[in-house]
């Protein structure tokens, strides 16, 4: 009698246990804070609008490249440069969303690996028929390669134009240019389609917790972007933080020169706007890391982390605004100011990676290993 009672109890409880264990669909919305609303806000008001806007720019960029290829005049070159600049700045608003299919097609690597490799670019052009899908060719395509092809081929515009109009390879140079813009446009459309088809709903539905939940993955990708691409890529590496000697040629948009600071600021704004859940191209804000941290703060009465992080974004911006438009020049003339900007950016790595992840209870690793 007694024994069978035990078996019954074990059976029922284990059943309950199993029914709850695996990451099933999310339960009823939390009465206090709706985490799914963050995902909806991210997808519908930030990520998809940002990609849509960027895809318009990439399409215009490609059209401008084709126009230039048809008629390689100075006027068309300038038009193409303008489109390149607009698109490059717009890219800063989507670069951090390296998630889902973007990570599979290595979107950011294809569009913005710098410094670009001029020798490889010339080889690709002169040999013809190079396969841009090869990861080895990441550094001879995307915006940095266009930077070189539009500004870096020669000192003067006239000399640059010669590459596209004279010599055995002129046609190949023109083709390579349109190959690059076509690829940027193609990859961007692939991501838009992906988000607009099924991924948006999958992303929003995956609102549980755990290493593979949308919030966890997005936050990890976001911090990874901030740490590696923004802090290190745009500032730390050119300033020589990781090499001991400054590397001005590693600045973003090195050949154009005076765009690097604006690209950095655009990226910083985008990162802060994402943190605050600010709708794309609008002053409206929705549920975000900021509002979630504020909610959690009401539970634990801890430090006001969200304003700490926002303040740190602001002081980094203030520091960056004092830098030269051309960050390569800044590195060469007075690298100490560059290092100051780096330090300001660095502090937010600590706030986000240590304090924020702890507050959100998100692991920094993708290995879904057992805990203690």
């Amino acid at each position, binding site marked *: 009698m007694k024994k069978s009672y035990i078996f019954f109890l074990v059976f029922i409880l284990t059943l309950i246990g199993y029914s709850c264990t695996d990451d099933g*669909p999310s339960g009823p919305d939390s009465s206090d804070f709706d985490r799914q609303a963050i995902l909806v806000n991210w997808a519908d008001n930030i990520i998809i609008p940002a990609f849509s806007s960027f895809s318009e720019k990439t399409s215009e960029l490609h059209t401008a490249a084709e126009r230039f290829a048809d008629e390689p005049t100075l006027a068309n070159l300038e038009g193409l440069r303008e489109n390149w600049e607009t698109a490059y700045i717009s890219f800063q608003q989507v670069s951090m969303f390296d998630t889902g299919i973007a990570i599979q097609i290595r979107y950011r690597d294809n569009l913005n690996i710098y410094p670009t490799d001029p020798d490889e670019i010339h080889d690709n052009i002169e040999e013809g028929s190079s396969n841009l899908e090869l990861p080895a060719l990441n550094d001879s395509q995307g915006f940095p390669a266009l930077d070189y092809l539009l500004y870096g081929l020669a000192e003067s515009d006239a000399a640059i134009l010669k590459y596209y109009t004279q010599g055995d390879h002129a046609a190949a140079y023109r083709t390579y240019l349109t190959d690059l813009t076509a690829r940027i446009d193609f990859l961007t459309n692939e991501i838009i389609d992906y988000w607009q088809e099924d991924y948006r709903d999958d992303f929003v539905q995956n609102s549980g917790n755990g290493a593979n939940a949308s919030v966890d993955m997005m936050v990890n990708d976001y911090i990874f972007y901030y740490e590696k691409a923004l802090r290190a890529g745009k500032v730390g590496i050119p300033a020589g933080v990781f090499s001991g000697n400054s590397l001005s040629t590693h600045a973003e948009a090195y050949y154009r020169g005076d765009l690097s600071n604006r690209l950095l600021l655009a990226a910083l704004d985008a990162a802060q706007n994402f943190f605050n859940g600010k709708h794309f191209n609008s002053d409206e804000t929705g549920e975000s890391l900021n509002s979630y941290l504020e909610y959690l703060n009401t539970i634990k009465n801890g430090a006001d982390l969200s304003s700490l992080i926002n303040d740190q974004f602001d002081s980094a911006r203030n520091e960056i605004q004092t830098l030269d438009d051309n960050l390569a020049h800044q590195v060469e003339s007075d690298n100490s100011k560059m290092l100051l900007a780096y330090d300001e950016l660095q502090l937010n790595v600590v706030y986000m990676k240590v304090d924020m992840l702890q*507050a959100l209870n998100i692991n920094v690793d993708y*290995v879904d290993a057992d805990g203690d």
Partner: protein
Amino acid sequence: MGNNGTFLHKYLNNQSDAAPLAVFRILFGLLMLISLIRFAANGWIEKLYLEPTFFFSYYGFEWVKPIGDFTYLIFIICGISAIMISIGYKYRLAAFVFFLSFTYIELMDKTTYLNHYYFISIVSFLMIFLPAHAYYSVDAYKYDQLRAQRVPTWAIDAVKLLLFIVYFYAGLAKLNSDWLFHAMPLKLWLPSNYALPILGDLLQKEWVHYFFSWSGALYDLTIPFLLLARKTRLFAFSLVVIFHVLTRVLFPIGMFPYIMIACTLIFFEASFHHKILRIISRLVKVSKNHFDNALDYRFPNSLLKKVSLGIVGLFFVIQLVFPFRHALYPGELFWTEEGYRFSWRVMLMEKAGYANFKIQDSDTGGQFYVDNSEFLTRFQEKQMATQPDFILEFAHHLKDHYKQLGIRKPKIYVESYVALNGRRSSPYINPEVDLTTINKSFKHKTWILPFDDSIKGL
């Protein structure tokens, strides 16, 4: 004194029904096998032991490393010995091989340390010296002189005592101000389970965090007593099931809850275990009667008996004392983690950190920072950033690395921040200390910056 002597003598010669120990052996082996298969199926052998290029070692065990693709072989050996334990075939050898292979796996990289794995290691060590194969095993089936329905009582009590220590010490560790009066770290961990049906909303409430903290501590402290007393045993076991199933639901805790539930069955009376064995007999079509010979287990020789008793006795002295070694260190245990491991501090704190290493060339004065991801996986980096011994070991690795790259005398500094139990992050390691001048040791690490708060308790 004389009385005690005769009491001990009498106790050591007491015999009990062997069924609880046999069931324990069967379930332990089976669950180990399942755990190993799960570990491999999750791709963790590759992720944790083959992909990293650097591994963190325990002091004195620097020679224990993954051995490339042969690492799989260690897991296979471990799995085979788990099967052999379960069926009781060449049992003592199997327990020995399991202990060695499992412990080797755990020693390969300190990053993956879990109290649970340590528990498995020491249980399997203990099992080498217990006659868990005397009853209902292949060995006992084959060898008439081994087959015995009764084993020394101390052999069963040894497993109970170990479980007692694990629970009770885990409870003692929870008696600290963060756990009891701030509901930390549960206050950080529980709200993220918002997606659970019914529980999800409750876990947002502050009183629930306190309720879980206090009942968790109370559970750990009382459960060993409740399991020991016959009257409360059934109630206690249902608590065990509820508690561990709940931890399984709330935390990524793997197989451990099931292992603990299975282990605590040993507290039940023999009649209950005979019932289980009858079920198994029906399933595998083995005659249980063959084993029911009412004989006492006899050690093959008195030396083995003496050695077994001596080692088990020493084992428990160490187990009782070792978890308190943190008392020998100054400073806050949760902050310095000096004496933290191997002490049943299970799911006790939440720590997050960030460590930025600076390499200085003494010859040129030039300096630069290290990209940790060049050397460590994210998991390793995370573990490294909050634990001083990891930070030091990594610094020494960096020293060797940059020496090879031609920096004759690198100095290595670390700028690090750690957040403990929801406090704001604060500087962790003294950034002025050149870590290449520090040797690995068990001495107090004076280069850890002091904790700027206090946590009262054990």
